[in-house]
């Protein structure tokens, strides 16, 4: 019957029907998948959002030793701390209480993968967003802060879920956050000018 190419009036070619059915379903599924693309793409950051994410400059002369400033880059608060020599010295004493003292599992540019987590010891630049769930860690620079215990070396404490970080943004054991505060890409153009959002000064042009 199939050989002659003639099918009797009431005979149903099941395998042919099954093939046509699955071919139709498969074609439809591919069509649906392609149609979904523009709808999914519409949720990604718009051109305007991307343009507004350009690098930002900061005038370092505004900061006295021990002070912190916050600038906005890509809708994230960037903490810029001018550390005192005592603050820098305090970083050496508590490696055993940190989850990731050498920043091996944390996110930072190569020039900040060190104990100070910065290009230079004086200035700390961090994304001020808790790596746990995105709250703003508060500045708690005073040693032995009564809320945080007598052995508190100074740093940041998150009000939402209680994560604690030292003055290099390294996370303490017992925090819900698992990794250190992120360091954004940044460059020091000269003694006064810091650029957040680029890895070297040329990129800022």
């Amino acid at each position: 019957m199939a050989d002659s190419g003639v099918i009797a009036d009431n005979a149903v070619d099941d395998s042919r029907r099954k093939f046509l059915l699955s071919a139709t379903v498969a074609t439809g599924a591919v069509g649906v998948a392609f149609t979904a693309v523009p709808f999914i793409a519409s949720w990604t950051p718009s051109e305007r959002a991307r343009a507004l994410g350009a690098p930002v400059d900061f005038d370092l002369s505004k900061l006295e030793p021990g002070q912190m400033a916050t600038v906005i880059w890509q809708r994230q608060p960037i903490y810029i701390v001018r550390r005192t020599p005592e603050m820098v010295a305090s970083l050496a004493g508590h490696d055993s209480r940190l989850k990731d003292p050498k920043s091996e599992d944390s996110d930072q540019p190569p020039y900040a993968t060190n104990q100070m987590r910065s290009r230079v010891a004086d200035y700390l630049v961090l994304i001020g967003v808790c790596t746990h769930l995105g709250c703003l860690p508060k500045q708690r620079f005073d040693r032995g802060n009564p809320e945080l215990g007598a052995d508190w070396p100074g740093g940041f404490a998150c009000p939402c879920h209680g994560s604690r970080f030292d003055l290099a943004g390294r996370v303490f054991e017992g925090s819900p956050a698992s990794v250190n505060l992120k360091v954004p890409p940044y460059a020091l153009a000269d003694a006064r000018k810091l650029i957040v959002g680029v890895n070297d000064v040329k990129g800022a042009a």
Partner: protein
Amino acid sequence: MAAVVKPPGEPTAKPGGLRAWLYKRLPIEEFLETQLTGYFAPKNFNVWYFFGFIAIVVLVIQLVTGIYLTMFYKPGEATSFDSVEFIMREVNSGWLIRYLHSTGASAFFIVVYLHMFRALLYGSYKAPRELLWVFGMLVYLALMAEAFMGYVLPWGNMSYWAAQVIVNVFGVIPGIGPGLVEWIRGDYGIADSTLNRFFALHVAAVPLGLLLLVVLHLVALRRTGSSNPDGIEIKEKLGADGKPLDGIPFHPYYTVKDTFGISVFLVLFAIVVFFVPTLNGLFLEHANFLPADPLSTPEPITPSWYFTPYYAMLRAIPNQRLGALVLVFGVMSYMFLPWLDRSPVKSMRYRGWLSKAFLTLFVISFLGLMYLGLQLPTRTAQIMARILTVPYLAYFWLMPFYTRWERCKPVPERVRFHAHG
């Protein structure tokens, strides 16, 4: 079926009248007969059986007040907060419509939690009602999504930070996490784009899904019939007329009972709306009366009370990925109940002391976690939350064992019911 008194479609109205005209064109008669006067429900419902109906009434309140709020609300970073204040201060009766909607959100969760507890108490999720339970849980999940996105819309400071924290939970998914978070936000932080898409989801997409799920929940309920406090299937004991011996028609018996229930509920609801609409920061948090500020996190940052049991679990675990996993696990555990419960009886009335003890501990841990989630994240609170998470999860995941070990009481042949004197 013998339960149907008249042949369906036979109009009770006089021929030539409007009702007769309608009955010929719409299956109104059949609907009333199968769903109300010919639908038999167990006669021993108690106070716990009010909440399903009340939940439907709250859903209607939310739909109506929600539609009215969209007439005055303007989504957008620059306009949202001001338009909500405009509703509160300048739209005539706007404050009432908004308070009805915000109180309705909390009322919805109170009612749904009591409705869920009823199911745990009387084993309503057990066979043959597994799908009914699963649809109900999907309603609960849709409701959580709806409540969360609605909470973001006023663009107060707590709205902003709640969105920040919850959206970031998706960031722990290995590999795709950070990209997914950026996709949900549509920007590098919670922004105008996030607010606008949440508005679209809150007023259109999720309510449509919610309505569909509620219909499926009710259709599945009509197929199996309601369970009851004795956990006996009334369909198994039919009288000579084919009607369940322990059943009574939904209308007029339970329509009247539910009317009483809804009256009591509406009195309590109105008291909150008119006298304590914020319920001292529990229904509307103080921090949300300030506009969103990306540079200032409220202290403490807490979600609405109905999410705090899960939020407390998230905070308790000193590891980001594990914390998020426990949160998801805590919410999703309900879904598996029909298959975790191996007890031969449904109702807690005939179960052994182990089931009763685990359910009691579950309720204590749920309420304890709810309280802890509203507090500052101190070390004590963290440790307490860790301790309470154990009985919470044990209730679900030890259920296959304790429901088999315990000795149950014999279940009576017929439902126990004493008419009021």
